[in-house]
């Protein structure tokens, strides 16, 4: 029974993935083709098949990028979505209307 349940869930997920693959294929065909610059083409053509351990800092840098996104997301989601509702907080007066506008007398 557990296996049937797991298989049916996997089938549902595969169906959703197939739908996204279809959409991606449509997007790939419809979007105007772009040709990257020659430097990029040369770089992509000559990527080493074997690992290079001396490139490890690149992996660290990528980890830092994910961390930055996570911290930014954390700040954004905390500040924007969990803030105190206006009804609970005390409104902050900006004293915009407390001063009478200065009139320049006509002479």
């Amino acid at each position, binding site marked *: 029974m557990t296996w049937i349940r797991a298989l049916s869930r996997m089938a549902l997920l595969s169906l959703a993935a197939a739908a996204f*693959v279809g*959409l*991606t294929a449509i997007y790939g065909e419809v*979007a105007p083709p772009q040709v990257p610059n020659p430097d990029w083409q040369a770089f992509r053509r000559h*990527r*080493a098949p074997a690992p290079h351990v001396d490139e490890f800092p690149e992996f660290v840098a990528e980890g830092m990028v994910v961390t930055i996104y*996570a911290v930014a997301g954390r700040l954004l989601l905390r500040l924007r979505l969990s803030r105190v509702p206006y009804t609970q907080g005390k409104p902050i007066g900006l004293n915009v209307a407390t001063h009478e506008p200065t009139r320049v007398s006509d002479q």
Partner: protein
Amino acid sequence: MVRNVTSATALRGQGLRSPLAETSQSATSAHWRLKITFWLDVALLVSVCVLQTVSFTGLVLHEWLGLATVGMVLAHLLFAWGWIATQSRRFVAKQSARERINYLLNLSLFALVTAAIFSGIVISQKAIPTLMGTNAAPEMDWRWDIRHNQFSEAVVLLSGLHLAINWDWVLAAGQRLLFPPFENIRERLRRSREDAP
């Protein structure tokens, strides 16, 4: 995929129920489930970073790891099936902005991971030709190469946001699995506070 958990107490409510209330067998299985889920998530996050650094991994490992990600993502989603089913049913009903954004974020992440893997398969030069027993295409399909890059960068961005929104769960699960003595002390303190009049 997502656990709206803010503390180890809430985490216990999802996966690890109180040993007093549960039999030791079910508590053990819940602990194993948590352990597998946590380490699978860690492996997925590391894979996302590793997959972005082709010069470090090399093209062969990059492509095979990309294919292995299919299985990891599938397992990740199966473990989070309860949340997926509940939130999908509730999406049309009234939900908080946070829950709605969370759901859309996760759906976008799934779509982008699928797109990145699909575009990777299209431009594969090592793994797919080996699996299919064919030769790699002589000329790179630049259109799909560019798309693959775009999808991968978007996956990194959404993975960071996914981590951000689930940070409380990650922290609670990490504390429970990596620092169990601290977790036990916290648990005793919490119980003593609850028992106090």
